[in-house]
């Protein structure tokens, strides 16, 4: 500690801020411990991949340096030699007041392992910044650090400050911008304490669950889905020891943060710091690579933009934000390049077409080759003449690994299942291109293997690729969201306002949409009612309870009791049709049984004549469409309902009167039940007579 203090006093003259008491340290993980950037990362570590012509790690280091960090420990795992060599030859090794130390490991397979190793080395002496080597930012740390320190003084359990950034609360922006999943956070708006973190919310469920103690313990909780996690953390020493204590912690977010929030270890707390005007984002996959590249070109990361970082006049910003740099690339004539990333020493011959592809160093595209959107060509791949590389394929000189190598980047969570699946694929011989025929795989003269995409991951491909999301996927994504939202709004009984908004934003905002909407609502309501009814039948639920349940459904779907009657009747008849029967008479008996058992349920929703008419209409509809078997039984069932006093004669007569004026086609059932109605009318007249 003595040495520490000496170092600090020497620096006080330059940095009068309080934070200079300890030299500010940072841990930079030069490995993301994932496989999202394969196959490129098989040959070169992710942090050295060029991002707008500069290796990614340079952005991170430059930011750390400017943010006042004085000591950086770069943790290298995969391709550690390359990273170390690069750092030693770069300017970073010779900076005054900024030391870069590398820590090498060959057996760490996760961020957790890395932090445990760093803890063992005992090099961290105070608060430190934890960041991965693929994060681009220009935020000022001073304020966040100060907040962190102040909190520490008040509460020793505040061990971590997580930097978050506001993002547009559009439901798909997270995914379409950075290719990451939507993130939910619950934050106490006063203390900024992070209470809940969920980045793998399942949409199929359509909801997330919060521990009720959260709400009980905090006077106010704000649940955000519009925050972007910047993956920049200011941590206290305790974080390292926590990782050591909990040796099963692997992933920073999935295990550590969630573990801390859920398990409530030692009362440790995590806080958030929101940045507004500055930029911070992490390159997680190819899509965020694309997005962040464009953000950098648009200078959101200023002053960490290529012309500033490079220092030389090699890159200058020109009109319209175009950067021009000599890349030693050869590009033939009639070549179309759109939205692609072409690294150094690439040869593109005449007539090639590239769309939204990443082309690594030393790639040769023979004339007429076509890269469809989302293609990744790893180092030194040769694409043969006229060959069309299919969309989203990844091509590498290396074969797709079938074994996990311990010193490679691995996604510990998915790797086992992933490779297992892959292997079985191989066994089944399901792989489309035969791996043994290398030459033909990429056309004549081509060199490289096209990696196969295993089933489960295919869905991820479009999401993570550099290519824009295909419109159909986007529409699907939107629809999913919309449905979710709809459900949410209905559940919460917040109806008309949001509905109106939505149709307006659809652009056409026509009546049609609205009708469609309510139609859909009714169908889903009907399904729910049917399910409830069936359950009631099978589980012998009491009628009263069933009534209660249907009523609850009615409220949540905002339906009238008319709809309930119709729906219940529909479910009853459906049950009758579905239960085994051989002849029409048996069917009649089935229906009679059901109606007898559940007449009270049905009756409780038929308060007036209109509702009863609705039931008849519904029945008519059924006979025409879903349950044609009833068509013949129509008068009998009608009679049955009359007998059971579900339908009053007034209702039936009114229905008959209404139908009188209808089209011939509509009168089919009226005619069939003519006799019954006739009888009813006569009975009524008799009654009238008697009265008189």
């Amino acid at each position, binding site marked *: 500690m003595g040495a520490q203090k000496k170092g600090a006093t020497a620096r006080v003259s330059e940095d009068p801020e309080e934070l200079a008491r300890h030299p500010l340290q940072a841990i930079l993980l030069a490995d993301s411990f994932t496989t999202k950037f394969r196959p490129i990362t098989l040959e070169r570590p992710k942090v050295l991949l060029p991002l707008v012509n500069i290796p990614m790690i340079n952005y991170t280091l430059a930011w750390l340096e400017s943010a006042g960090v004085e000591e950086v420990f770069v943790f290298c795992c995969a391709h550690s030699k390359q990273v170390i060599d690069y750092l030693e030859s770069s300017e970073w090794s010779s900076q005054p007041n900024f030391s870069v130390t590398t820590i090498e490991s060959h057996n760490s397979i996760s961020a957790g392992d890395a932090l445990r190793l760093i803890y063992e080395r005992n090099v961290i002496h105070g608060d430190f910044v934890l960041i991965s080597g693929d994060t681009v930012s220009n935020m000022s740390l001073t304020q966040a650090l100060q907040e962190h320190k102040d909190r520490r003084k008040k509460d020793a359990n505040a061990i971590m400050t997580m930097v978050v950034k506001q993002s547009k609360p559009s439901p798909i922006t997270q995914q379409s911008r950075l290719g990451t999943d939507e993130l939910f956070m619950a934050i106490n708006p006063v203390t900024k304490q992070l209470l809940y973190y969920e980045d793998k919310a399942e949409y199929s469920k359509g909801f997330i669950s919060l521990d009720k103690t959260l709400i009980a313990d905090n006077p106010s909780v704000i649940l955000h889905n519009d925050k972007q996690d910047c993956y920049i953390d200011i941590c206290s020493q305790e974080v390292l020891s926590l990782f050591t204590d909990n040796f099963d912690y692997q992933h920073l977010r999935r295990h550590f943060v969630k573990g801390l929030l859920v398990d409530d270890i030692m009362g440790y707390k995590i806080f958030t710091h929101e940045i507004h005007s500055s930029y911070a984002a992490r390159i997680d996959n190819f899509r965020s690579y694309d997005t962040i590249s464009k953000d950098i070109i648009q200078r959101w990361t200023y002053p960490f933009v290529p012309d500033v970082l490079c220092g030389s*006049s090699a890159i200058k910003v020109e009109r319209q934000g175009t950067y021009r740099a000599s890349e030693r690339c050869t590009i033939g004539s009639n070549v179309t390049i759109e939205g692609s990333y072409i690294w150094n020493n690439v040869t593109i011959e005449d007539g090639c077409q590239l769309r939204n592809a990443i082309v690594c160093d030393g790639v040769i595209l023979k004339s007429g080759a076509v890269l469809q959107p989302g293609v990744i060509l790893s180092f030194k791949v040769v694409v043969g003449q006229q060959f069309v590389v299919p969309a989203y394929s990844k091509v590498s000189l290396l074969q797709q690994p079938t074994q996990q190598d311990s010193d490679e980047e691995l996604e510990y969570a998915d790797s086992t299942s992933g490779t297992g699946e892959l292997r079985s694929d191989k066994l089944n011989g399901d792989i489309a291109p035969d791996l043994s025929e290398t030459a033909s795989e990429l056309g004549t003269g081509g060199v490289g293997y096209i990696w196969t995409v295993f089933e489960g991951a295919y869905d991820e491909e479009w999401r993570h690729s550099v290519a824009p999301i295909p419109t159909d996927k986007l529409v699907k994504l939107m629809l999913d969201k919309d449905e979710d939202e709809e459900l949410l709004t209905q559940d919460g009984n917040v109806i008309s306002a949001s509905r109106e908004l939505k149709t307006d934003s659809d652009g056409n905002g026509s009546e049609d949409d609205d009708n469609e909407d309510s139609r859909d609502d009714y169908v889903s309501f009907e399904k729910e009612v049917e399910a409830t009814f069936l359950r009631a039948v099978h589980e012998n639920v009491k009628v009263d309870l069933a009534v209660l349940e249907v009523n609850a459904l009615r409220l949540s779907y905002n339906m009238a009791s008319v709809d309930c009657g119709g729906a219940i009747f529909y479910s009853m008849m459906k049950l009758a049709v579905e239960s085994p029967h051989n002849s029409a008479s048996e069917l009649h008996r089935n229906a009679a049984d059901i109606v007898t058992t559940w007449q009270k349920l049905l009756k409780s929703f038929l308060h007036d004549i209109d509702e009863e008419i609705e039931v008849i209409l519904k029945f008519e509809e059924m006979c025409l469409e879903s349950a044609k078997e009833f068509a013949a039984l129509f008068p009998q069932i009608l009679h049955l309902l009359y007998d059971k006093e579900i339908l009053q004669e007034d209702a039936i007569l009114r229905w008959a009167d209404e139908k009188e004026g209808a089209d011939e086609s509509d009168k089919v059932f009226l005619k069939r039940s003519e006799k019954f109605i006739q009888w009813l009318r006569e009975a009524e007249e008799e009654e009238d007579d008697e009265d008189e």
Partner: protein
Amino acid sequence: MPDTQALVNDFLNKLKKRKIEGSQATAKQTAELLRSVISQTRMPYTNQASALIHSVKAVGERLIAANPVELAVGNVVRRVLHIIREEDLSLTTAAMAGLNLSAESDDEDDTDRDNHPALSAAAIAAASRSTLRPPSLQTLLEDVPDSAAVPHTSSSGGDSEGKSKSADKSSRSRKLKHDVIEAVNELIQDISTCRELIAEQAVEHIHQNEVILTLGSSRTVLEFLCAAKEKKRSFRVFVAEGAPRYQGHLLAKELVTRGLQTTLITDSAVFAMISRVNMVIVGAHAVMANGGVIAPVGLNMVALAAQKHAVPFVVLAGSHKLCPLYPHHPEVLLNELRSPSELLDFGEFSDCLDFGSGIGAPLLHVVNPTFDYVPPKLVSLFITDTGGHNPSYMYRLIADYYSADDLVLERRTASGN
């Protein structure tokens, strides 16, 4: 030498990261750095001047490359080079004249050069100099004999005649270095006092009950206005806020604390207000050789409005801001594009910058240039630390400070160091 190397690297880093704000600070630090470079340079027996020039150029080139937008760096480098050349020239001419003067006058002249009339040796040196190059602007304008002009041109870098008496071969090597360092010290002095010198002239320009308009914030402007206020001038100031950095807000605050009547307006309201304004006073980022001004964004608009209403447009600039280059010069990177986040909040607009959907390219571009160019015809007057100047005379003023050999630094010393 390793010591200087570390200093240079440190400074380079700061320049690169845009950590030094303001051209005055940059200029001063550049001069200080170059001074230590000069003092560390080993002097060979022959051709000392070119050795110095070489080492200064090598460093200067890197400094300029580190932040090509900050022209003050290049200006100071060129001025230091000019100083070396001048000193060398003076020494040579003095040697040629075969003069050998006593040491005591040397000391005396060093201490208070500004007050004393130049000594005869200085006059000779100056005279010999003037045969080698055209007379200075000051001399032409004021029509005074060369010897009397020496105090005035003290900031012109060619003011070290007084020290150049020793033609003794043995002491010459130390003499040149010493003289150069002295002159650089003077340059540093000039840079740090330029604001006061400019502010001193305030009363001559700002009159009672006038309305002054300015845009954004400039320390020089602030001190200029305050100097007039201290001289019991009562006037009002309109401050245009200077989007997108809104430094005008800070200026307005500062002015109010100093007791000035201040009105804050938006940039777009300048034309509406200009008819009430008596004079526009603004700061500059750099003044080019043609009299054009590189200034904070928005000033061209102000200048046009001022011209329309025939309001004088006055630019305050310390002499370190005078750049010997022309704005069409390829070396001059006219603009710096800063982060769009100054214009709008990234979070609010992140859906517009969505590259995943649509055509993959963003439909929204946000461009945030830092500087504007005001052509010389829109400028009425420049006020530098040496006085007021017409734009069309700027090139002559600049010729006093720089030698033509140094205008293009990069290409000639590409293999340097």
